[in-house]
């Protein structure tokens, strides 16, 4: 195990542990920047999709992973960000202004929704957000004059620093646009987590009572978390709209909300890595399934058949296995493997044992 001997305060608060860790992330950054040169346009599109999902995952991770408020309604904010961005662009606002503004507006909506939601705990919050996600579909249809309702809208090409960027025409440029947004948001997220606000998120997640005793304003913290989470999700939604090219009321269905939550659970709740790892799983699972279906079909001599709902069935099954056997997700498993290697042969089975608690309710009858 690398033990870093800290000699001054700046070293203690900087985002990376030591030069070795910084190097690793620099290499990763170099690889993703070089990616368009290494892979063809189809896989570049898939990679862009993964990055957009990771961005949305980071949005939900702030709220669910770090503040402990489970939301089953984040597709609503994806939709809001997407529609806000496109509608502003149609009104003649340049993309460079409309895009951050869409994120900001979504964040504001999030704060407004957070005010009543603050009174709800656990499952009640999950159900309220679920209902909100279902309502989004109907609201988009009802506000047809702005949103185009069932017939939907098409995303125009966007202009960034004088470059015309279009998902199909210039996939490389679109990839760099998404990558730039993801890198900026990730750096912001890392910094948030070492700032007082980020620390208070974690305090609220672990124990509201203790957080309050330590002087954390719970209502304000939760509202901030909601706002930041929705803002990032809104940005992801705007990119998702551009990526899809065309979208309508059914694009951001309640299934997307649930998928998003499942994604960060598989990746690992409470870690930024988790959002990316979960996005990789969700982005490449359909590819993997179609390839393996062809493989199985070739093996048994039959043609590959379409199995409706297979993707969700497999996805649900993977999720059940993760929750039962690795509640910390892929990132948690990686931490265990890393610790095992670093400490070899002194790793012990219960080093990551989670504390279990007996249940007590608030109900009197």
């Amino acid at each position: 195990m690398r033990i870093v001997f800290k000699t001054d305060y700046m070293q203690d608060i900087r985002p990376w542990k030591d030069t070795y860790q910084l190097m690793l992330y620099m290499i990763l950054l170099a690889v993703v920047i070089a990616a368009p040169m290494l892979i063809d346009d189809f896989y570049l599109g898939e990679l862009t999709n993964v990055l957009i999902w990771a961005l949305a995952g980071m949005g939900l991770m702030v709220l669910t992973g770090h503040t402990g408020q489970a939301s089953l309604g984040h597709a609503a904010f994806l939709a809001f960000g997407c529609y806000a961005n496109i509608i502003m662009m149609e009104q003649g606002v340049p993309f460079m202004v409309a895009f951050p503004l869409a994120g900001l507006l979504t964040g504001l909506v999030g704060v407004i929704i957070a005010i009543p939601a603050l009174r709800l705990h656990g499952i009640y919050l999950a159900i309220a957000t679920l209902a909100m996600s279902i309502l989004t579909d109907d609201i988009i249809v009802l506000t047809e004059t702005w949103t185009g309702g069932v017939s939907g809208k098409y995303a125009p090409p966007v202009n960034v620093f004088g470059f015309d960027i279009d998902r199909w025409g210039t996939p490389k440029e679109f990839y760099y646009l998404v990558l730039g947004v993801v890198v900026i948001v990730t750096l912001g997220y890392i910094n948030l987590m070492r700032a007082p606000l980020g620390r208070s998120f974690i305090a609220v997640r672990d124990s509201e009572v203790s957080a309050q005793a330590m002087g954390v304003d719970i209502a304000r913290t939760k509202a901030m978390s909601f706002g930041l989470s929705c803002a990032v999700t809104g940005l992801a939604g705007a990119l998702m709209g551009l990526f899809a090219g065309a979208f309508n009321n059914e694009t951001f269905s309640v299934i997307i909300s649930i998928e998003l939550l499942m994604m960060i659970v598989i990746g690992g709740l409470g870690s930024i890595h988790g959002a990316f790892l979960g996005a990789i799983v969700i982005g490449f699972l359909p590819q993997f399934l179609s390839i393996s279906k062809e493989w199985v079909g070739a093996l048994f001599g039959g043609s590959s058949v379409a199995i409706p709902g297979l993707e969700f069935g497999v996805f649900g099954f993977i999720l059940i296995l993760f929750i039962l056997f690795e509640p910390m997700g892929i990132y948690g498993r990686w931490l265990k493997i890393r610790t095992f290697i670093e400490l070899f042969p002194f790793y012990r089975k219960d080093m990551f044992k989670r504390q279990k608690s007996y249940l007590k309710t608030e109900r009197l009858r």
Partner: protein
Amino acid sequence: MDILQLLISGLANGCVYGLIALGFVLIYKATEAVNFAQGDFMMLGAFVTIGLTNAGYMGIPFWLAVPISISIMALMGYLLDRFVIRLMFGQSQTAVVILTIALGFVIRFVAGMIWGHEPQSLENPLAGKELRLGELVLGMEDVAVIVVTILLTWGLYEFFNRTKMGLAMQGASQNQLAAYYMGVPVKRVQGFIWALAGAVACIAGILFAAKGAVDPSTGLMGIKAFAAAVIGGFGSLPGALAGGLIVGVIEPFASRYIAAGYSQVAPYALLLAVLIFRPHGLFSQVRVKKV
């Protein structure tokens, strides 16, 4: 007369919502977890009965098939608790929520694989019969749904308040550690309640499939039952039924008197309104939490 007719059909629909909500409440009352797959359980129960009794499948007589499928679903519920939920013992509610959502996906997929994605309806002895009261014409299925639901709710209510097992369940949910001290076999109690929830889901499924048609995505109707359970308050059995009836009655009236497009919003809007103004339901049982 028209309004009365709407009311009755709304009540019959509401009873099905109420029965699903009853499943939520049963599990919530005894384990403090929420089974998001309850709607999919209902769908599975309906398909199991269809598989047993419909002429196209096994063709067992209806009255024989019903107890068999109820016991199959009860067994499913028990096994689910024994081999999946029990591993989660001592973890947070949110983890159970996510687990049951994933379970719903898997159940929907499996049901689609076995019975296909076409809507199917249950062949039953009451189909097509009518009950005439003056000018009022009631489908026998609707009447059966209402009667069965009321009897079941009353039975479960008495069970929870009168029997030793019912009280043990409430104790096990209010404070697990204290329940252990008092000699309540908490894990066995939880297995029993999941079996009971499976049986209730199966009854709901049978009633639903007798009235209309089911397909694998019917389980998503569970979301409307959430509205029922929330309106009634998650800890109250009569509340769940009342909530189900409210949602069921609102739907036909909303689609009749409110412009199309706004009407299907009604149950969810009501759900959100209740959550905002009475976060613990109309039949609230929560007082201030003490540290």
